[in-house]
């Protein structure tokens, strides 16, 4: 299970203020804390407050600041191709591009970036008409992503399909459709593409967020999920992942399984 730490995002007030003042402290601090908690990648997002023309400089600054603090690779989270390229240009190691939709125009912009910078890329199972209502329509768009990525010579292990989770308190019927999508995405190609979700979205504005997050993540892991953007600081969530690893026979059991997962 690939863990992508969600915390360096302008939606959080401390990061938004750090961006406004170009104050590296909070960004470096969250990079370190997430690395210590076991993140494999750091998601990097300016959030919606930054104007489009400023975004390339901000993304570049965030990537530099995070990577100077810890050596982890980043998952560059922006819809702005200029900002994406600015971040990729200074990034050390293999980045993840987050993301392209299944719109032809977006795919034609972002897949070449993945090739040029040797990055992996997240493909969202949505297009200009929005998020599909069921698994079948999500899979149609996933197939578009698979075909286009393949046409650019991107190996399937570098393509992460995101079936798009919606908040359970307003779009309850989507949760099970996403699970079905995760299962069937694996049938689209051989070797299959990988799958990723932005986990915290499932519990937006709901009560018992941590419980909903970890219950859903375990269900998604059972369906074959490979990666998630999530709160690596949620200890109960990480314990649930460690336990699911054991129950799915991905890790040899031992009594210290929680500790070995924390120290991995």
């Amino acid at each position, binding site marked *: 299970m690939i863990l992508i730490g969600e915390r360096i995002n302008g939606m959080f007030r401390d990061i938004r203020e750090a961006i406004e003042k170009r104050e590296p402290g909070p960004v470096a601090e969250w990079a370190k804390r997430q690395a210590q908690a076991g993140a494999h990648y750091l998601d990097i997002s300016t959030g919606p407050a930054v104007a489009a023309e400023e975004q390339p400089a901000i993304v570049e600054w965030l990537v530099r600041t995070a990577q100077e603090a810890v050596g982890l690779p980043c998952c560059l989270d922006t819809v702005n191709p200029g900002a994406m390229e600015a971040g990729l240009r200074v990034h050390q190691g293999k980045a993840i591009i987050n993301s392209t939709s299944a719109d032809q125009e977006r795919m034609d912009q972002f897949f070449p970036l993945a090739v040029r910078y040797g990055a992996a890329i997240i493909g969202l199972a949505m297009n200009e008409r929005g998020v599909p209502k069921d698994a079948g329509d999500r899979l149609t768009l996933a197939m578009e992503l698979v075909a286009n990525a393949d046409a650019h010579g991107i190996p399937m292990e570098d393509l992460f399909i995101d079936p798009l989770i919606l908040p359970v308190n307003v779009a309850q019927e989507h949760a099970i459709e996403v699970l079905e999508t995760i299962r069937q995405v694996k049938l689209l190609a051989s070797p299959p593409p990988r799958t990723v979700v932005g986990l915290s979205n499932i519990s937006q504005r709901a009560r018992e967020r941590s419980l909903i997050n970890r219950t859903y993540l375990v269900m998604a892991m059972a369906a074959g999920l490979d990666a998630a953007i999530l709160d690596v600081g949620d200890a109960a969530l990480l314990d649930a992942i460690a336990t699911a690893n054991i129950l799915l026979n991905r890790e040899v*059991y*031992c009594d210290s399984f929680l500790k070995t997962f924390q120290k991995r």
Partner: protein
Amino acid sequence: MSVEIVRERWKGKVYEMMLGREPHTVRVGGDTSLPFMHFEGKTARPVTALEVQDVEPSDWPEVLRAPFAEVLGDPVAWACRCVEVGADLVALRLAGAHPESGDAGAEAVAATARAVAGAVSVPLIVLGCGVEEKDARILPVVAEALEGQNCLLGQATMDNYKAVVAGCLAYGHSVVATSPLDINLAKQLNILITEMNLPPERIAMDPSIGPLGYGIEYAYSIIERKRLGALTGDRMLAQPVICLVGEESWKIKEAQAEDVPEWGDQTRRAVLWEAMTAVTLALAGGSIFVFRHPESLTRFNRKIDALMGQQVY
């Protein structure tokens, strides 16, 4: 038509353990592929040891006593003989410390260990008497007596590992971690030992093998699963595996029985049993093989020579 060889890409490797002192060190493990898959990665040649006991063995059949007949009561001479016949390591079993066969004290067995270490240049494996409480008392003293020799000491179990590992930590040895044919317990024991700050590359896992015909398939699949764990990045399953093939093979009736002509010559039968047990477990992924009969070791090495040779496709 050309055939493309499909290669597995592994991200992990078996830890490499170094035993003994320069210039006579022996490296164990470090493999980066499944055993003998030379086209996928490195297979470290399995290393061999011959067993020496501190007191003359009372339960060895005549055909096993024969090759060492004049030296069985003299562990130093016996150890020198083992080196002459080609063992990479000497494995000294402190059987005389067993409460029911001599009950020798820590100082006495430590003196024997020191004498053996002084007589041979190859690295030493030193195994206690197999009674956990007794081994917890004698092995730290043996560890001190062998300070600087960089030996492999055991067996540490779930019940006595603290004392044994403390000795290894203080005097610079590696440890044999023994678990009862159980991969989960093996992993747990490795974790407990590394939590005492012994580096992970200073542990050898002893899975408590069964010989051919006596549960070897369980040992095989556990050793194989450990290797797969090592290659897929599980650092608590990446320690090299030690197989006490001599001890286990010579216990069974096919090795012990003298008067069964329809089973063929006893020496040949028992030696083949010991050698086949070892070759089988080398194919599973064992790294250190402790033999009793020198001819079994020779036969094993001949087979390993072939397995380490060039593969043609």
